[in-house]
């Protein structure tokens, strides 16, 4: 059963295009998706996923399960950075540990989307409010990460490391909150969610006209973006050699651990199979879209090649290729069909 799930996932178009990108780097092809085309697809995917999430949220309403699930998701985005920081701190300096912690507490929208496509192929339902959970998990993890760095940072640094132009460390927080909540991708995702909600509630006639753009194109655009992700992930893998086995191990084991916790919470919340998979994927995935830009500004002492390479070069492929079918297999064993 499990092996057939893995196979089913492996021969899906998005995963195959991801591998095609990886292969291009391995064999040395000059295939590339020049900038800003990847940005076009990432903006599109965020807009579309937000809009559809808002639409379905409007249909499902804000019942108690919805609120509990979102609350649990936000809680995970606060706890995962703390536990990750404690583990990482055993081998790493405070800045890199904090930046990695923020990344693993936050989420990967593309992993989430790939899981949704996987559920579609399996004909399993899931709910739109999971997108709201996704949208609300990015910012808290960033704030916790910066907070951990601030708490853990050596006393001397705490004085000298003040950002230029920051008055007595106070102004600094404005910048952290700015990066956490107004980051372009967070902003677009939440904004599109709200717009999807408003349009569905007040002007449903407009929905049909959005559908070809937000719905029909989605799967193909995901394939195209994953082709680029494959290229970038494979390039990143090279960097990772320098990072050493500890970080590579963390990048594989952390998603397993977080997914397991996510499975436990899903059971407690009584989520159906589809939502359980999405919840696990939210916990297990690490951010490489919203977090790097935020960390660059708020924790410039951390080395971007560490947090980008582990999140995008290891954890992302692991989740997309092995994780999603594996988590599904666990769900089929532990979560009853609703």
């Amino acid at each position: 059963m499990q092996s057939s799930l893995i196979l089913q996932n492996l021969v899906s178009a998005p995963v195959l295009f991801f591998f095609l990108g990886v292969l291009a780097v391995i064999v040395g092809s000059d295939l590339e998706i020049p900038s800003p085309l990847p940005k076009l697809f990432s903006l599109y995917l965020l807009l579309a996923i937000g809009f559809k999430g808002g639409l379905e949220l409007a249909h499902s309403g804000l019942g108690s399960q919805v609120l509990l699930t979102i609350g649990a998701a936000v809680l995970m985005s606060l706890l995962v950075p703390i536990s990750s920081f404690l583990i990482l701190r055993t081998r790493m300096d405070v800045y890199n540990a904090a930046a990695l912690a923020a990344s693993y507490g936050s989420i990967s929208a593309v992993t989430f989307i790939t899981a949704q496509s996987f559920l579609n192929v399996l004909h399993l339902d899931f709910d739109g409010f999971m997108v709201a959970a996704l949208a609300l998990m990015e910012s808290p993890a960033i704030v916790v990460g910066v907070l951990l760095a601030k708490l853990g940072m050596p006393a001397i640094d705490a004085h000298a490391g003040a950002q230029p132009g920051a008055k007595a460390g106070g102004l600094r927080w404005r910048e952290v909150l700015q990066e956490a909540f107004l980051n372009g991708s967070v902003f677009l995702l939440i904004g599109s969610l709200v717009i999807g909600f408003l349009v569905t509630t007040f002007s449903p006639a407009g929905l049909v006209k959005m559908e070809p753009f937000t719905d029909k194109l989605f799967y193909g655009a995901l394939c195209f973006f994953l082709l680029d992700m494959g290229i970038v992930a494979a390039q990143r893998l090279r960097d990772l050699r320098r990072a050493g086995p500890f970080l590579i191990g963390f990048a594989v084991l952390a998603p397993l651990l977080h997914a397991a916790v996510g499975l436990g919470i899903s059971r407690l919340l009584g989520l159906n199979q589809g939502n359980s998979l999405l919840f696990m994927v939210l916990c297990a995935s690490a951010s490489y879209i919203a977090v790097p830009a935020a960390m660059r500004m708020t924790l410039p002492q951390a080395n971007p090649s560490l947090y980008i390479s582990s999140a995008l070069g290891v954890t992302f492929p692991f989740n997309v290729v092995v994780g999603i079918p594996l988590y599904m297999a666990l769900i089929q064993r532990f979560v009853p069909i609703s």
Partner: protein
Amino acid sequence: MKRIDLFLSEREVNKVCKAISEAGVPGYSVIRHVTGKGLAGEISESMDFSGLGANAHVIVFCDPGLLSAVRAALRPLFEVYGGVGFISEAEPL
């Protein structure tokens, strides 16, 4: 007249332009999408989709008298975020 060439991350380019404007330079030019290599390693455009960006090249032609103000404005930024700067001689066409 002096020519100043700055290389830094695109993320800080607005901060840098603000700083040099306040230092009194009469004008500047900015080239984005610059890749390269420096102390912080190789910088490519491949993370552009995340808003991380590549480097920017800022070019300023100004009076020698402004050099120290520009230097003072940039030093703290370069110390925190990285970036390099060079000067050479020039004259108006």
